């Protein structure tokens, strides 16, 4: 591939790096697993990049590959987030005292998300990222109706899970 394409790819991925880290945080429990997943996603993005023709938004394409890789493209390890074990939960880095409550809430949310299945995790993440239902349909391949029904169920489930903790 041409050097120019490499530069272009590097620039685009760098622009969306935070998004990739959010996917990794969603699907991997600890720092090492997140690094592995991040690397795997970047490799898959690079493999698919020559075929990206811009039919969809770059972020939509990127979400598809990132979620597909997180769900099916990495060897499953026992220590991937799969249960509500405080030690397994992604750490929330403390910032300042004013954010403590917010951090605590997010910590609880991640703890609850850890108990969802891979598809529910993807739906929650896209919802929280304020993606439109049309974009979610494009990424996940589910109908808008099914997504809305799932979202209602997931909200109920998370409400229950956070109530219990």
């Amino acid at each position, binding site marked *: 591939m041409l050097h120019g394409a*490499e530069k272009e*790819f*590097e620039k685009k*991925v760098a622009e969306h*790096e*935070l998004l990739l*880290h*959010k996917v990794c*945080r969603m699907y991997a429990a600890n*720092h090492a697993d997140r*690094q*592995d997943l*991040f*690397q*795997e996603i*970047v*490799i898959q993005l*690079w*493999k*698919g990049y020559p075929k*990206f023709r811009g039919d969809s938004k770059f972020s939509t*394409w990127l979400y*598809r*590959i990132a*979620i*597909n*890789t997180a*769900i*099916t*493209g*990495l*060897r*499953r390890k026992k220590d991937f987030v799969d249960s509500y074990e405080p030690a397994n939960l992604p*750490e929330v*880095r403390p910032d300042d005292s004013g954010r403590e409550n*917010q951090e605590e809430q*997010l910590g*609880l*949310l991640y703890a*609850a998300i850890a108990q969802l*299945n891979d*598809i*529910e995790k*993807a739906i*929650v993440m896209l*919802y*929280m*990222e*304020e993606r439109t239902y049309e974009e979610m349909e494009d*990424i*996940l*391949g*589910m109908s808008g109706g*099914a997504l809305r029904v*799932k979202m209602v169920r997931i*909200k109920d489930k*998370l*409400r229950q899970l*956070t*109530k219990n903790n």
Partner: protein
Amino acid sequence: MELDDLKKSWNSQPIQTNKNTNIMELIQHKSGGPVAALKRGFKAQMRIMLLMPLFIFIANSMNAEGLLKSILFWSYVVFCVLVVAFFYFDYRIATRMEVMEGAVKANLEKQTLLLEKRLRWKMIGLPIAMLFFILLVEVLPYVQHYKMLNTWHNLSPFIRFGAYAFLLLFQYVVSRRINERRFGAHLRHLKELVKEMQD
């Protein structure tokens, strides 16, 4: 806790990123995914199968002329070529599984379908390969003289065919167990996710 109330916190959450991430350095690494591992395995198996007849030829180079006239040797060469073709077919399936840019649901369906197809072919291919050798062992002594095969043919047909039946059954059980151990949990996980998306 309401999900919608947390959107603001979610979007301003501090995410630990590696400030020195070198994207171009990352893509130089080999993929650690299960499909990439499968592909590496198929490549290695193809190389071994292609080299096997060569090793046999070198090991028997003192009797090269006899070896080149041996039906058993040439049958083995044909067998190796067929196995390489089989692994190449597997390799192509794995390459298709590697494409991740489709929508998540379509990708999961594709992964499930291709993995099932591969396992089905493996379950069909192995007994066919064994039947090929059984046929060879049974027919060859009538065409060419092999001391070992003649000894085997002196045994009662009940013992010989009983042994073949046992081998086929043993192969079937072992293949199933290996498939279950290597791919069973992954395949069930994929199917569960596909079902989840269909609900």
